[in-house]
Structures are given as structure tokens and as C-alpha cells.
């Protein structure tokens, strides 16, 4: 029983993640082309919903773009040509993975920069600590006496 439930649940999870929003009527007969279309669609943002790809979105514009991608592929466009076609109309924002260029430098290198800065602070902190140990002074006679007294009490 338990196994059956797990199997049913995992089937549900699997199918929902695989399905996307592509309708059978949109699909190309050529399975190689269709797969390329799916792969391209997964990287294109649905501008209406913004955080879904056009492959996952049920929005009207997403459907139109899915069909457009398939039309371009059928017309003989390469994957890059299809992407360029869409980017020429909607800008880099339509790509879910932003391209690496001057305008996106902070986006790509920012986290590395922050990590570097944190590392520097961390390193400084420890070096300082190490220095302090090195310059520690011995106990004075008074302190020594107090120390002995405390130890004796224990």
C-alpha cells in the first residue's frame, strides 16, 4: 500500500515537471525539432508571468512565442538564430539566463566580489588574533599571587 502511494506520488511529481504547458496541437511532427523547440522554450522568459519560462506558462503570449519558436525552427533557423530573433524584440530580459556582458558584469561577478570581501575580513580578523597571542605579556607578580590563590580555592 505504502509503495503504491509513493509510486503514485512520484509519478505525479514526474509528470507535472515534464509536461510543461505545450499543447499537443502546437507540437512539431519532427521529434528532433520538437526537442530543440522545448529546450529553447525553457530558456525564454514569459514576459506576462516573468518567473516562468514560455515552456511552462499557459499565458497567451507564451503560447504565441512557443509557436513562433517552432515556426522559426521549421524555417531552418539555428537555435541561436531563434534566440536572437526573440531577443531583438524583447531584449536580454527575455532570456532566463542573462548573458555575460558589460551591463551584467555586477550581476555575474557581484557574488564573487562579496565572497572575496568577506574572505578578506575573515583573514584580517584571524591575523589580528594571532598577533595578539604573540605579544601576550607574562603575569605580573601580583597577578601570579591572585592566580595561585584562586587555584588553591578550587
Amino acid at each position, binding site marked *: 500500500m505504502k509503495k503504491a502511494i509513493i509510486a503514485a506520488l512520484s509519478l505525479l511529481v514526474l509528470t507535472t515537471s515534464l509536461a510543461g504547458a505545450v499543447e499537443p496541437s502546437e507540437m512539431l511532427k519532427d521529434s528532433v525539432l520538437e526537442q530543440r523547440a522545448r529546450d529553447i522554450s525553457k530558456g525564454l522568459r514569459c*514576459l*506576462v508571468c*516573468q518567473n516562468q519560462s514560455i515552456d511552462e506558462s499557459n499565458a*497567451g*503570449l507564451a503560447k*504565441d*512565442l512557443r509557436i*513562433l519558436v517552432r515556426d522559426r525552427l521549421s524555417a531552418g533557423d539555428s537555435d541561436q538564430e531563434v534566440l536572437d530573433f526573440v*531577443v*531583438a*524584440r*524583447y*531584449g536580454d*530580459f527575455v532570456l532566463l539566463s542573462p548573458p555575460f556582458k558589460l551591463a551584467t558584469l555586477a550581476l555575474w561577478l557581484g557574488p564573487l566580489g562579496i565572497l572575496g570581501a568577506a574572505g578578506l*575580513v575573515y583573514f*584580517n*580578523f584571524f591575523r*589580528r588574533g594571532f598577533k*595578539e*597571542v*604573540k*605579544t*601576550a*605579556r*607574562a603575569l605580573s607578580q601580583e597577578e601570579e599571587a591572585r592566580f*595561585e590563590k584562586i*587555584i588553591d580555592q578550587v
Partner: protein
Amino acid sequence: MNTNAAPELDIDDSAELPKPRTGMIRIYAIPLIGFAVIAVAFAIGLTMDPREIPSVLIGKKVPEFSLSAVQGRTLGLSDTDLRGEVSLVNVFASWCTACRQEHPLLMDLAKRNIVPIHGLNYKDKPDDAQEWLDGLGDPYTRTGADINGRVAIDWGVYGVPETFVVDKEGRIAYKQIGAITQKILDEKILPFVKRLQNEGDAK
């Protein structure tokens, strides 16, 4: 008690007591400053509308297209119609509620005869589009029925209503995403139109 002695150290008997360290204060200030920077960045971010994506087509020629008029109208719309004078291109649809909201403003603007408004009817049924124009009034000089939405994609349209300001050479000068309000019209669109109209006269 010697068993408790500290491990071998380079002990300096002459060392002074450690001074209060200003460096520590600086270190503790780092997360605070970091927080302040992020807070300011987020505060600015909150005032911006993530749905407004700047068009990449600003400054570029309008895409080539040719559409027949909305059912019941005679003048269609193509890219060649958008040359020679400054014009507005309004993307609308009968199923779009925000279009209904901005429609009276377009009617009013059309009456003032400042700038021709052309209508790009986006993914509408011909009957619905006709009913819309007959019922609510027709502010458009020319209309184009983009029934499958392909021309709108060439214009980078992702939501209706959208309104483009096109200059005399047929280049897209400005794009308004979402419904026009009186404020947007007076402070953004019309100043743009007037500047573009004057630009040509100065030459």
C-alpha cells in the same frame, strides 16, 4: 602548577596593556554598513515596477508589417503609414479592461487633433473589435487587425494596452506600457510628441 603553563610563546614582558582597538569598531560596522546598502537598494527597488521592461526597440525603425483594417473600417495600417509625421500607435483589444479605462482619454486626444492615433488591434475577434469601436467610439485614424498577434510580437508587445510614440522617420521614440492616464499623457507622451514635431521643423 607548572602543568597549567601556557604553550611556548614569544612572551614579551615589556608589552603594554592592549589599547582599545578602533579596528574592532570598524569590523563591527561592516555588517551594519552592508545592511544599510542593501536596505537602500531594496527601498529603491520597491518603488520600481517590475512589469515595466524597457523596450529594446526605442530609437529603432518600426518593424515591417502590413495589416488590413479592423472589420468595418477602411484604412489599414502598415509601417509605411508611420512615416512623414509624428504619430501614436496604441495597442488595444476588446477583451482588455485597462484599454476600456484609457479609451476616453484617447477619444479626447483625438478630438484635440494634436497627433494622429493609430490602433493596433491585438488578438481580437473581428466582430468584437468592430463592436468596441462602434460602441465606445473610434479615436483611430488608421487601424490594423493583428488577429494572430504576430505583428505585436515584432513590436515587442507583451501586454495590452501599450502605446508607442513614432517619430517622423518612422522610428519608435517612446513606449508606454499599461493604460494611459491624464498624468502620463500630459507629462510624458504629449511633451514627447511636441518635441518630435518641433524637431523636424527646426531642420
